[in-house]
């Protein structure tokens, strides 16, 4: 079966799952089956089919599984958000269509994505500016002590989501050009292999600026994500574990410094270590997140069964259920098995992404695919790890599932880039190599 036919075959069960999910929520909420779920499933399938036909025309060789997997996560998200609030789900569905439109535009205009390399410093600057934007007077917005969003007229946006793509493009491009000198120019000092500062300089400047910006806007989750992606790319580009170790050491030093000086950071860490100190205030979100998961068990309570607010009131029982803690809601309603399914989908996307990097021919494609995949997987880890108390809870979105336009749009652009790289790699590799892409 050709790649596109496999994609088509995979989309049908996704649409059926969405239909079944909506049917389950309807059955729970109104105690009857509603053929509206079929209508929603039909719409969803139609939108996916349109995208599929577009891909068939534009990127016939692209990876066949990435789009169905992303659609599956989106379907998951739509059902969970619908279950929280029907109005929000309508917004999210519109944003899904908007995301797909930008996905199509990105594929249309970036067909020759090498041009990205030429504008790497411009792209880096745009990325930094996007990060800075929430602090700009007039358009900046402060939420929970963090400056995450900008608002222009009716449009609200979280720039960090797009910024991550800009910075990955820059890092991939820069490392492609300088990876040799970074390896060859490395010197051993006191038994530790250090990268040559001259070539590392611009990298450190851009990266350092982004980290500072993140501290400035107090977006811990994004800074963690950016830093991890940076280390991952540096390692893949140079193959030097010692660089990663140095980076980690610097990170721990920086983390210690910020944890002891910036109250916002300090609080997050303290809550993570001792959530029971203030169960009704600062520790409320993480504790409620864990309590919600405890009710899930192996099989979950079923769609629509979880308590999100205290019954009879609007007091949140699971704060930020549609964004940060949506994973806890999934554990509650679908149980450990449902949660494992979600994690497995992320893992499959990561596997396909890294596969693209493996078969890509040129260094930029390899590094870009690696970087985009890494930042995507790490974002999922940061938020799922946050709500399961693996790491301090910081507000980043769960890609394709959480409610929020910036997240869904940015992740579809990221997906577009991965498919562009994949299409070229598999085309050039020819049928023999493309077979590698088969499961």
């Amino acid at each position, binding site marked *: 079966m050709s790649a596109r036919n496999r994609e088509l075959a995979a989309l049908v069960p996704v649409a059926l799952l969405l239909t079944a999910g909506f049917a389950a929520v309807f059955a729970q909420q109104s105690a009857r089956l509603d053929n509206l779920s079929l209508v929603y499933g039909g719409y969803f399938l139609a939108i996916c089919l349109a995208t599929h036909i577009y891909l068939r025309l534009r990127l016939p060789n692209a990876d066949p599984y990435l789009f169905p997997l992303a659609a599956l996560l989106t379907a998951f998200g739509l059902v969970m958000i619908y279950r929280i609030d029907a109005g929000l789900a309508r917004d999210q569905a519109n944003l899904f269509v908007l995301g797909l439109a930008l996905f199509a535009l990105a594929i249309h205009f970036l067909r020759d994505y090498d041009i990205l390399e030429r504008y790497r410093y411009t792209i880096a600057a745009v990325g930094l500016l996007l990060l800075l934007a929430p602090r700009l007077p007039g358009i900046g917005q402060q939420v929970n002590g963090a400056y995450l969003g900008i608002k222009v007229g009716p449009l609200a946006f979280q720039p960090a989501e797009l910024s991550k793509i800009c910075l990955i493009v820059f890092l991939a491009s820069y490392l492609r050009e300088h990876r040799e000198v970074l390896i060859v120019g490395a010197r051993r000092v006191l038994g530790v292999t250090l990268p040559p500062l001259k070539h590392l300089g611009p990298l450190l400047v851009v990266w350092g600026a982004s980290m500072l910006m993140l501290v400035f806007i107090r977006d811990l989750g994004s800074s963690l994500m950016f830093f991890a992606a940076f280390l991952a790319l540096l390692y893949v580009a140079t193959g030097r574990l010692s660089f990663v170790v140095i980076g980690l050491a610097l990170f721990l030093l920086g983390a210690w410094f910020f944890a002891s000086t910036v109250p916002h950071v300090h609080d997050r860490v303290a809550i993570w270590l001792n959530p029971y100190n203030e169960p009704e205030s600062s520790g409320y979100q993480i504790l409620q997140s864990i309590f919600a998961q*405890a009710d899930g068990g192996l099989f979950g309570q079923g769609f629509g069964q979880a308590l999100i*607010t205290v019954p009879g009131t609007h007091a949140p029982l699971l704060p930020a259920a549609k964004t940060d803690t949506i994973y806890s809601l999934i554990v509650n309603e679908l149980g450990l098995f449902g949660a494992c399914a979600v994690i497995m989908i992320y893992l499959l996307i990561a596997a396909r992404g890294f596969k693209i990097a493996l078969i890509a021919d040129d260094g930029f494609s390899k590094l870009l695919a690696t970087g985009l995949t890494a930042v995507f997987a790490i974002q999922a880890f940061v938020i799922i790890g946050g709500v399961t108390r693996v790491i301090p809870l910081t507000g980043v979105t769960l890609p394709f599932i959480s409610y929020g336009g910036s997240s869904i749009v940015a992740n579809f652009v990221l997906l577009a880039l991965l498919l562009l790289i994949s299409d070229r790699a598999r085309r050039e590799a020819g049928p023999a190599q493309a077979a590698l892409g088969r499961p």
Partner: protein
Amino acid sequence: MNGQIVKLFRLIVLLFAVLVGFTSYWAVFDAKALKDNTANKRPLLEQQRIRRGRILAADGTVLARSVRKGHGDGLRYVRRYPEGALYGHPIGYSFVRQGDSEFEKFHNDELAGNGSEFSSILDELRGGRQEGNDVVTNIDPAAQRVALSDLEAAGFGAVVAIVPNTGRVRVLASNPPFDPNRVPEHLGELTSDPTAPLFDRATQGQYPPGSTFKVVTAAAGLDSGTITPETTIDAPGTITAQGRPLQNDFKQSFGPISLDSALTYSVNTWFAQLGVRIGVDTLFEYMSRFGFNSTPPIDLPSSQVSKSGVYEGADLLGPNDPIDIARVAFGQERLAVTPLQMAEVAATVANGGRLMKPQIWSRVVDPDGRAVDRLDPSAYSQVVDPQTAAELTTAMEGVVDAGTGTNAAIPGVRVAGKTGTAETPFNSTCGGGADQNQAWFIGFAPADEPKIAIAATVECTTAFGNDVAAPIFRDVAETILNSEVR
């Protein structure tokens, strides 16, 4: 670079495995501890979403039900008690914030519909929400009403009525009562009330049994072969036990008499000597068979059912402790008993010496109206043999016919019973008066074919058992004998 990419992927796999590990820990392995955590309000809120089953009297009167509040995500149920204070004891209450007590607490699993893990998965597949079962009790509403209103006229105290051959509890009344509907708003007030309305005197009240305990001593004496109904013991007005004088009422001397006369006239010196003859070990053995020194096997939380026996402070004494057996034998010493225990004594004699486990519940009915469980009456112990029980019955009939308990008589019905009046002078709970008594009556009717065994007691009264407790016995017994409830 491919080698590094593969290694990076492995790292991502490892990180995701950590996520699966942590999720498993919270969702499965640590779930029970998290649900018990006091900071976790979810279990309470979940409980509030379950339509708890009703509690019904034997005739179908609704004693407790859940009413719906809100809808959708705001849906919750609140407990209502249509009969108010009449069934505060023994039904108790169940509220999300205030917790639960008594019958509501003991039968929580049935009422909340908590089934096995398997059945809840089945429910989930069916898409059903957990629903509670109704629990039907053996309580006879007419008799419960008579018992409580008689008590309210007589004073604080309790009445327990048990069907002798099944152990079905028809009445369990405690005065002062409380209205469970008031608990959500006034729990603090009810708790600090000096009259202790939340205290179930029928099962928790520990009172000196007075002469009603002579039934236990007589049972031990006859059944152990220490005496026969014909055995006579000389009963002077005063004897000495443990170096202190021990007297009959008005120091009346009876001479050599047998059990019938000794019980009919409640002769202390006679029973004191019988107690010494039986011996402490044998008497304690019979007490244990009657259920003393153990938590009565009734369907109420053990924290709300007291043990009866000889107490030193809060400690129960055993046969090896220094005990004045002569005074135990006629219900003095440090004996403290619950009305429930004394009702069990009466029921044992009525049922040919066989003590049935007292049970308030009768059957569990699922939301579709099917009885999913029914009370299967079972014996607690064979306390004495049927002949002993018959001999005791004859002696106890004498008490009502011609002795100290004539006010318990019901026209046209043979009644067997025993009065008791324990002096409780200077008792702080009674206000410290010098002539305060604990008045008792235990008995059963009809004596030839017992349908009901009852213990009635009134605390802090200046009256005697025959004056205040026997009439309560008579009213409740009459109501039950005329009742439709079977």
